[in-house]
């Protein structure tokens, strides 16, 4: 069956360290993979999109990698800050799946001062 998985356990890290979140998928061949941030009681906010032919994408302190062989995307936040504490969602766009986004359940990140 097709599925997309993110770390189910909350990630706690110390301020200044690098946070790494994982998104794994099976039985998809995504054209794109997207990462979103969601704060409690708010809608998700788009962060980064990476295409299947891209290995890495960066935006300020954020970095996303995409390994289509491992069927995995890693999301890194360098020099993490308490303000980075949120839930991070990955979503993949599979052109064969009626062109809809498939969502992971998200990973909660807490950055401790």
């Amino acid at each position: 069956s097709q599925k997309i998985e993110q770390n189910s356990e909350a990630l706690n890290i110390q301020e200044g360290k690098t946070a790494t979140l994982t998104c794994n998928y099976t039985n998809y061949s995504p054209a794109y993979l997207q990462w979103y941030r969601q704060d409690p009681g708010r809608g998700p906010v788009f962060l980064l999109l990476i295409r299947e032919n891209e290995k890495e994408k960066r935006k300020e302190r954020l970095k996303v990698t995409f390994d289509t062989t491992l069927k995995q995307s890693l999301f890194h936040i360098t020099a993490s800050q308490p303000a980075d504490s949120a839930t991070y969602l990955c979503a993949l766009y599979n052109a064969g799946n009626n062109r809809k986004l498939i969502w992971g359940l998200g990973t909660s990140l807490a950055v401790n001062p």
Partner: protein
Amino acid sequence: SQTIHQWPATLVQPVGSPLSLECTVEGTSNPNLYWYRQAAGRGLQLLFYSVGIGQISSEVPQNLSASRPQDRQFILSSKKLLLSDSGFYLCAWSPGHAGGSPLHFGNGTRLTVT
């Protein structure tokens, strides 16, 4: 710049009552529009999406319906709410010209059916 407005922010309704949630987008034309529901531990569930006025695709059979009376207006409705309709409802838009485009979400409506 584009903005999306969704209201109300919170809503408490009795079982059997009707529902109407509204979403409007500004600063873009012919967007794709979406209604999602997010329940604890279940992630984002796509309920409806629309690629144009009057064009609605339903993803999950249920007692909810959606309408798009204007290009940038999307409405989620129910004639009679069930307890199971409680949840966090999110409206989103994306550019209409390309699949896989990022979604831009509103701030959601927390619906509690009592």
